[in-house]
């Protein structure tokens, strides 16, 4: 049996190591949620990777080769999204969607990941956007 003070020291060292591990791992792996309004108000913060949720504006979806371009709206604010890759079949105008990516210098949001929100009781749901 290890003596009590030594055991306490061991526990303290373990906790400190665990804390460092968690803090280090959280750095760079957190993705923040923004609304289109927040992205427009603070473009600098959206230069790094963020998730933006909103409604796909009806009539705004265009396909350009492998890209899908559409507007995402929330509470009157709209951003232009250019999505690389194929949106899921359930991606539809007027429905909610969450895109992940970053804001480019030209003010267009470059997304490489898109999740569609369903109104289902149970199923693939994504976080409802803030607000």
């Amino acid at each position: 049996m290890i003596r009590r003070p030594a055991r306490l020291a061991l526990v303290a060292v373990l906790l400190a190591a665990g804390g460092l591990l968690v803090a280090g791992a959280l750095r760079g792996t957190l993705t923040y949620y923004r609304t289109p309004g927040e992205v427009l108000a603070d473009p600098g913060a959206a230069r790094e990777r963020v998730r933006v949720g909103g409604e796909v504006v009806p009539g705004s979806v265009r396909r350009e080769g492998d890209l899908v371009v559409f507007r995402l709206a929330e509470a009157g604010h709209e951003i232009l999204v250019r999505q690389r890759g194929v949106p899921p079949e359930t991606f539809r105008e007027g429905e909610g969607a969450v895109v992940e990516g970053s804001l480019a210098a030209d003010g267009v949001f470059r997304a490489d990941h898109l999740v569609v929100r369903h109104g289902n009781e149970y199923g693939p749901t994504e976080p409802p956007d803030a607000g």
Partner: protein
Amino acid sequence: MLGDLGTATLAAGLLGATLAALLWLRVALLAAPARPARAATTLTVLAAAAACAVLETALLRHDFSVRYVAENGGRHVSVPDTVTSLWSALDGSLLLWSLVLCGYAALLARRRHPPRLHAYAMAVVSVVATFFFALSALAANPFRDVHPVPIDGPGPNPLLQQHPAMAVHPPLLYAGYLGLVVPFALALAAPLAGDQGRGWLRLARPWTLAAWTALTAGIGLGAWWSYAVLGWGGYWVWDPVENASLLPWLTATAFLHTARVGGTRHARWNAVLACASFVLVLLGTFLTRSGAIASVHAFTESPLGPLLLGLVLLAVLAATLLAGRRDVAPAETPAPPLLSRATAVLVNGVLLVTIAATVLIGTVAPLLTEPLTGERVSVGPGYYHRTAVPLAVAVLLLAGVAPALRRAGDRAGVRRLLVPAAAALATVAAVGLSSRPGLPALTAFGAAAFTLTGLAAELGSAPRRRLRAVRLAAVLAHAGLALVAVGVAGSSAYGQVTERTVRVGETLRVADVSARLVSVDRSTTGGRMVVRARLAVTGDGTSRTVTPGLWYDPARDTAVTVPRIDTGPWRDTYLTLLAVAADGGSATVRLAVNPLVGVLWCGGALMAAGGLLAFGGSLRRRRRGPAPPARPATRVEVAA
């Protein structure tokens, strides 16, 4: 009609569970006869079974006046899918949950454990059962009637209708989760029962083994379902719901090991692990059923949140007050030397708990950051890759070290490790030179080789007749763990994927596999639109036709991809149809080659088999094994 009957069964269950809790407490405090308490427990399990039977009948009869049937039933749904839709949504699955919980209560009630320990443990289980019945009866009653009665329902979520694993995954998972209530109850009862509480670790073992086995199988089936159905080709995304199932598994694994090898030496540590496992089950229930965390397969918003959070806090409080007390009898056994199996197992337990802690932090961080900082965040898989994955590799390595250190202070044990270490280094060198899988995968391969070689040496050296079931079970489970590591590392390091829109006649290629789009067919069956892409897949010198599909379900207004997997001996060819052009002339297809996924499923199956074997062994030992701890002071003899 059926609705009223169902509500009545819930009321009976609530009443029965409350009575059972009080009566068992009376047995514990006043040494009263246990017969009435047992009867109350029986009443509770009958009520839970009746509630499930009534809801099942309503589903099968398409009685849409019952709310749950109106929301999840449907005339177009096949009979097997109707049966399993009992647990396809929140309220129905809560009934199954109560049934499994009461089943465990009834089994525990029949055991002849030391009477006071037994009665306190039964009281704890009954309180938990009371809570879940209250939840069903008051907040999530699936039997409430609907006005006006609809003529048809939407059917369960289409994602849940297309894989056999969905039929057994939730019941198995529940059997695993709720089995952990027994070690939790025994750990809480032990300090209350005084002298009788000494033997609780031994009593808790078969229950924990059974729960662990079911949980392992349940997690494995869940991963298989998500691989075969969700269509993105993966089996684990560190989704909150998945994490919720992993957390109690980690602590229960640590508990099984330290309770056996450390024995009574770390009594408090064992009590903490037993309590933590069930508290994590409750916390996971809160996370997935309250709508607090959005996830791939969380149930949506529900009023259960505050109630469940209350139960979690109550359980934590009870565990802290009772299990946190100082041991009645300090350990008397001499301390093992530093280099021993006991130390290795203890260190591994600490590592497992650390993994659980980091995963827990990652899972609840999004919940905590919003009120604290006002920022909504999500924690990406990168976090878990940096924390849980390296720790898991360390656990695997130590799992290879521990069995070699057979006796305490055994120097020969270190020598026994030389061959596995050489095998590990050789594997790392060979794999590292022939491919570039990256450091995590490389260390995982090395650790797996280390553990597997050690296990093989152990099997080879032990005389056949002396290889007891317990040892064989450990060998199976550890080999399974190593295979899981190989499968995970291999499929994530060597998997390749491409995603493209191709016209009919064009070809997609990834690695040496090519898929040519032959045709796109549309059909309508059973009110459901189905599109199938016919692809000619060539690879490994063979050619075959694979037809991934896309269903559109108008009843729920959802489209579901139906991926097709062509399973080979060493790799899967995974095809998903993502979208089709309106004219049927082109389709967007995802083609992935996933190596070693089969090894992963084999590993999971081996682990579950090991658990089952150990469970069988522990039952047999109990039947003929050592008498219950000395001095059964006031024996309460009641026919079960």
